[in-house]
Structures are given as C-alpha cells and as structure tokens.
C-alpha cells in the first residue's frame, strides 16, 4: 500500500462488512464465560490469604485483649507462667547455649543478613525484588515499632531477665526483624519450588530457636514472639506474592534481561490459551523477539499453525510497563516541564487501548504500519497483549546495506503523511523503521499523538532525516527532503531538535559511527536556526519538583529511622 493512499470509506446505508478476519481463520474465537478464571489469574494463594486474614484477626483480637484490663492480666499471667517455667529450667550450660542462640536476633546477625541480601539483589540486578524486600522489611520494622509504642507491654514480670534488651516487649523486635529478613531473602533469592519449600522449615526452626532463647532468657513473653512472627511472616509473604508473583517475576539464575517479562511457564501457557480463545488462532510457538529495541514492553513473535505457517507480532504489557511509563513521564516533566501530553495512564488496559488505537489510526491514515489484530487479555487489568501483523521479511533500517534515494523518499513521505493526517509518531529511531521490499514501514506507534504541536511534528521530521542519514549522507537526505519539504520546514525541524529530543538509540548510532549528523544538517541549512528552547517552567513544575524532593527526603528519613531503630544500620 502506498503511504499516501486513503482507505475508502464504507458506503452509506449498507451493512459494514469489515475487512477479512485474517487471524481467526482457524479454530474460531471463544467468549470466556462468567466465573471462569482468566488465562493467567494472579492469585495470592491460599496460604497467603490465610496469613493475611490470620494476621489481621490476631492483631484485632490482641488489641481487644490488652485494651481490656481483665484479659490483659490473663495474657500477662500466661506469659508469666511460660517464662517462669523456662526460668525454672535454667542451668549454667543451658544459659550459655541460649545466650549463643540469642545471637540469632542480635543487631549484627540481622545487619549481616539484611545487607548481604541487599547486595545479592543488587548484583543479580533483581531490582523489583530488592524494592519489595526493602519495603517489606521497612513495613515490618515500622509496624512493630508502632505497635510496641501502642501496646506499651512490659518485659516478662517476676523473672530475672538475662539477655540484653531495649524498649517495650510486644511485638518482639528481634523476632520480627530476623523473620522478615529471612522471609524476604527466601522469596527474593530462592527459586520457587524445592529450594524455597526447603527454606521455609529452616526459617521456622531458626525463628523458633530465637523465640525459645528469648523466653528462656526472660527477654520476651510467649505473646511477644507470636505476634512478631505473625506480622513478620505475613507482610513479606503477601508483598512478594502480590508484587512479584513467581509466574510473572520468577526468581531464576538464567541469563536474560530483567526488563522483559518471562514468557515461559504458566504465562507462556496463558498466552497460548488467550491467543487461541480471543483471536481464534492456533498457536505453534511464542518467542521473545527484538528485545534490545524495546524497553517499554515485551515484544513477541507468534508462530501460527496453518498452511503455510504464518507469524504475528505481539507486545506484552504488564503493570511494570505502566509504572515505567508513569516514572518516565514524571521524569520528563521534572526535567523539561510539560513539553507535550505527559498525562500518565491509569491502567494497563488503557495503555494497550492507546497502542491499539494508535495502530488503527496509523493504518487507517494510510501510513505504512502493521495491521492491528486487537488486544488479548492475559490477566484482567494487569496483563494484555497488542497483536499486529508481523513483517517477516523486513530489515531494520540500520541493518540495510545502503539507503538509496527511493528509501529516503519513502521515509520522508511517511512524515509528510503523518503531518497531513495531523499525527506525530514521537519515537522515530532506527529500530522503529523497517525496510521491506524496498519500502519503509513504521512500527511501534505507542507514543503516537493526535493533533500534536508543530514543534513535535518538526522533531519527527528531523529525527527521520537523521535516521536516514545514518545509512547515507546528510547531503543526500537534505537534497531529497527539499523535494517534499520547504527550507523553512526543514530549518524549523533542526531548530526544534537537540540532544534529548532524539531517541537514545539514534544518539547511540551516531556516536558509534563517530558522525555528528545534526551539525552536518545545520551546515547545509540556508541559515543557522535559532534553537527552540525545550525547557518549560511553570508553577506546577516547580511545585512538583519541590514535592518530589520533600517526599523523597521524608521517605529516606523514615526508612533510615525505622531501619536504625531495628538495628539494621
């Protein structure tokens, strides 16, 4: 299809026939009935739910018990009876052993475990697990500190206390800190399966040993260690299961990019099932494809059964991509002000809707881009795939031996077509321009914007010219560009373009080639353009910057304070 060709509109008064269903030739689509689980449910698991409800229930029960004098006294009596029983069994050797076991909850043990887990997660570049580990540990230390202040529970009464202690007794902070760190370490470092299952009883034994030593030495009562253990197991367990579920973020020691989602295991099966149910295709194989060129999603190539076998291209989006998009936009607003539409998406569903819409818009506008086949739901509100046509015999423009006048004209025509249709692509870079049978195809239209600012359109032109020049020369591209754009338009394009407006892949390509193409084009212009400033200052931006700095300081101070009080620093 020529980029300039318009799709014919549907004739008035006739039923809409639509275009042929290219992806449901085999099998047919199936509607998921009400009550049926989605292809990849995101379960907290039964044990997670039990721990969560148990922890909440125990805390309420506990609060009720100790806020009432009668029941509080009974708890004190029980604690006293248990600790007095342990104290009655004290011997010289027993005390020595228990004081050694007590070192499990010492500041140094906890510090070594905490920092070594942290270091391991940094070395393994498992940053999501690292943040969950930090957050869960912080939550446990902060909550136990808060509850200790609320409960004002004394150390065991009526016995000689042998160990070192500080502060109120309930919940037991050594038990909480040790349990939380061990749980965090287990869920972030041990792969799910046998190793993790083996780790659980090991943690139980270690925590029980510490608890017994605390009871024996009279540092804590039974209720202190139980409440601490419940809190410190529940928070990391729920946090890891919810934020880093094994199916989505598996703990593995295979090499691979952590920025992309794993498409094997349960997710792989879910993708197969979802494609078959929702698009009616028989999937033979799903493989990651072109990961290096994509940071905002996980690109996949789908082999479809049939005679002959065909291919589809799919982009898998999850909550992590949504959050990346939010951070990216916040970062841009802080660094440059509100250059253009920086409103973040609220949900993954809206994010994929935008991509699908942009694909349909481009395709409908006659821009040579992949034909969209729709959205596939993997986990409701959490994971979706955008499925399109796959250009199976296309080459990235950066890999083409020579970019001739024909390809240059074709690439520039795409920009002219975008301008005429009132669109901007906003991510013109070598990875997004494919050459197929001597024609340029534009892919990855996620950032596309309708009715963009003239500045944004000018940047698209400059970036296209720079990309084309990476495989030819500035003079050649400039000469061809003047056939479709006038000098003012080209001058404006390079006035609007500076370092950060060029995609990083384009900058890297020019750097690798040792060519300053931007300067090369500037020299060719009839007059040196006055650069268009990209910094936009507003009260909102200043307020946002101040808010972010204050919030970061507050979080840092709170975390440091909480970690310090738990003996982790």
């Amino acid at each position: 299809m020529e980029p300039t060709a318009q799709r014919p509109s549907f004739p008035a008064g006739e039923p809409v026939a639509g275009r042929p269903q290219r992806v449901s030739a085999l099998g047919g689509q199936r509607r998921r009935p009400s009550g049926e689980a989605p292809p990849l449910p995101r379960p907290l698991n039964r044990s997670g739910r039990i721990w969560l409800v148990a922890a909440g229930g125990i805390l309420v029960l506990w609060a009720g018990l100790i806020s009432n004098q009668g029941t509080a006294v009974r708890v004190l009596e029980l604690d006293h009876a248990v600790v007095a029983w342990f104290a009655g069994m004290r011997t010289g050797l027993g005390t020595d052993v228990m004081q050694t076991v007590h070192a499990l909850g010492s500041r140094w043990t906890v510090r070594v475990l905490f920092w070594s887990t942290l270091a391991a997660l940094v070395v393994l570049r498992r940053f999501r697990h690292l943040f969950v580990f930090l957050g869960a540990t912080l939550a446990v230390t902060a909550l136990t500190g808060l509850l200790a202040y609320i409960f004002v529970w004394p150390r065991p009464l009526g016995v000689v206390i042998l160990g070192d202690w500080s502060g109120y007794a309930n919940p037991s902070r050594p038990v909480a800190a040790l349990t939380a760190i061990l749980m965090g370490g287990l869920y972030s470092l041990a792969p799910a399966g046998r190793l993790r299952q083996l780790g659980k009883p090991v943690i139980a034994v270690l925590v029980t040993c510490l608890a017994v030593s605390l009871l024996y030495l009279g540092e804590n009562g039974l209720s202190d260690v139980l409440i601490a253990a419940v809190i410190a197991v529940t928070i990391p367990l729920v946090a890891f299961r919810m934020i880093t579920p094994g199916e989505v973020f598996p703990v593995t020691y295979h090499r691979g990019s952590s920025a992309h989602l794993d498409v094997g295991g349960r997710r792989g099966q879910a993708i197969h099932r979802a494609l078959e149910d929702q698009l009616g295709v028989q999937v033979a194989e799903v493989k990651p494809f072109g990961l290096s060129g994509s940071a905002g999603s996980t690109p996949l190539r789908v082999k479809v059964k049939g005679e002959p076998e065909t291919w589809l291209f799919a982009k898998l989006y999850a909550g992590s991509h949504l959050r990346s998009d939010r951070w990216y936009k916040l970062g841009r607003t802080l660094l440059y002000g509100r250059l253009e539409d920086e409103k973040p998406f609220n949900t993954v569903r809206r994010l994929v809707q935008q991509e699908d819409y942009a694909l349909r818009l481009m395709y409908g506008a006659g821009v040579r881009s992949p034909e969209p086949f729709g959205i596939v739901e993997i986990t409701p509100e959490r994971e979706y795939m955008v499925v399109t046509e796959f250009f199976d015999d296309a080459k990235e423009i950066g890999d083409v031996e020579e970019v001739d006048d024909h390809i240059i004209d074709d690439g520039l025509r795409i920009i002219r077509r975008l301008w005429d249709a009132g669109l901007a692509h906003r991510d013109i870079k070598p990875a997004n321009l494919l050459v197929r049978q001597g024609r340029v195809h534009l892919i990855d239209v996620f950032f596309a914007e309708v009715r963009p600012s003239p500045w944004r359109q000018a940047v698209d032109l400059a970036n296209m010219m720079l990309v084309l020049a990476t495989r030819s020369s500035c003079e050649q591209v400039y000469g061809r560009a003047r056939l479709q754009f006038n000098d003012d338009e080209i001058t404006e394009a390079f006035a609007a373009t500076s370092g950060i407006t060029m995609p990083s892949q384009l900058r890297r390509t020019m750097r690798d080639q040792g060519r300053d193409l931007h300067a090369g084009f500037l020299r060719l212009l009839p007059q040196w353009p006055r650069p268009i400033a990209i910094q936009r200052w507003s009260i909102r931006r200043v307020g946002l910057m101040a808010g972010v700095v204050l919030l970061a300081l507050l979080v840092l101070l709170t975390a440091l304070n909480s970690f310090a009080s738990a003996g982790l620093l």
Partner: protein
Amino acid sequence: MRRRLLLLATALLVLAGCGVAPSGSSFTEAREPSCRYQGREGTALMVLVAQAVPTASQLPCVELLPAGWSVSDVFVRNGRVRFALNSDRVGQGAVQVVLQQFCTLGKATRVPSDHPGTRRYQEVISIEPGKRYLGALYYLFPGGCVTYRLDFRSDEQARPLGEVTLALGFVTRDALRETISEFTDGKVPLDPPSEAQ
C-alpha cells in the same frame, strides 16, 4: 478479592491501634515517665524503667511539668534509662535524666536531699556568665543512682534549677510493686521472688 483482603487487613490493623489507644493527651501521658497516672503510682513506662534497673529502689519520674517544659528522647534498655526535659526558655535537652545502678560522682559535693530515702550530690561543671550553665545533680539510693545533667543555655540558673527539682521526682519500687499487684490481683509480681522484699 485481593483489594478487599487488603482493605480488611488495613481496617483490622487500624482498629487494633484504636482499640488500645486512649485518646489525646491521655495516650501520650501513659507513655511518659510520669510518677502518677489515673490515680496510680507509675505508668506502663515506669514498669519498664523498673525492669531496666532491677536493683533500683527508687525510680526517677516526672511529677508535674511546669509550663514551657516537655519530655522527649525516652530510652530504656537493660541497665540504663534515659530521658530528656526540654525547655522553651533554657533550651532543648536542658536536662538529661539517667538512671543506672552505679554512677561516678567526680567532684560532686553532697548537699541536703529534697527526696526522702536519697542522698543528693551537686556538681558545677562550667558557667559562662549570662550564657550557659553546665552542671549535674546526683541522687543515690539503695541499688541505683540517678543523674540530672543540666545544660541551661540562658542567663538564668536558679529559676530553671528550681523548676527541674520540682518537676522531677521519684516513685519507690515498693509503690510500683503495689500498683502491679493491684492491677493483676496479686497474680503477677513485678520482681522475681528472690528479689522481692
């Protein structure tokens, strides 16, 4: 389902906090080293203070804070208790109160004690006329010693010193033991049997 569970757990937690917490200043007061709380000798914190130095027959506490004074930095661990008094006139941390089993008196001079059952020593460390007063008061009693480290950043010395000695007092261990016994109907003692008097 997951969100509902989270909400439920959060609500339970908040309820747990609210269930125990008395309202307003009463909540804070129960967590301060006050000599009396709701008609009884000592507070929950004072029980912890007694456990920190199990030999101490007297336990330092706050009788009644004069206007402009507040308590902060309460720290209790085995063998040592510390808290600070802040003043809007003579500075933050104007008084550091420390309870230990033993203390070194240095060049302190014995003076008549204002608290029965204690011996009082006083030491002037340095005086910058009109600017700063550094000194210490020591109260010795069976099984313990309380130090008031004084750091008044003001031209006044006499008035804040008078306010401090009036604000701070002692609860006897026996009185606290009585409170615990009354609270638990005599079922749980404060001290182990061998140490109970």
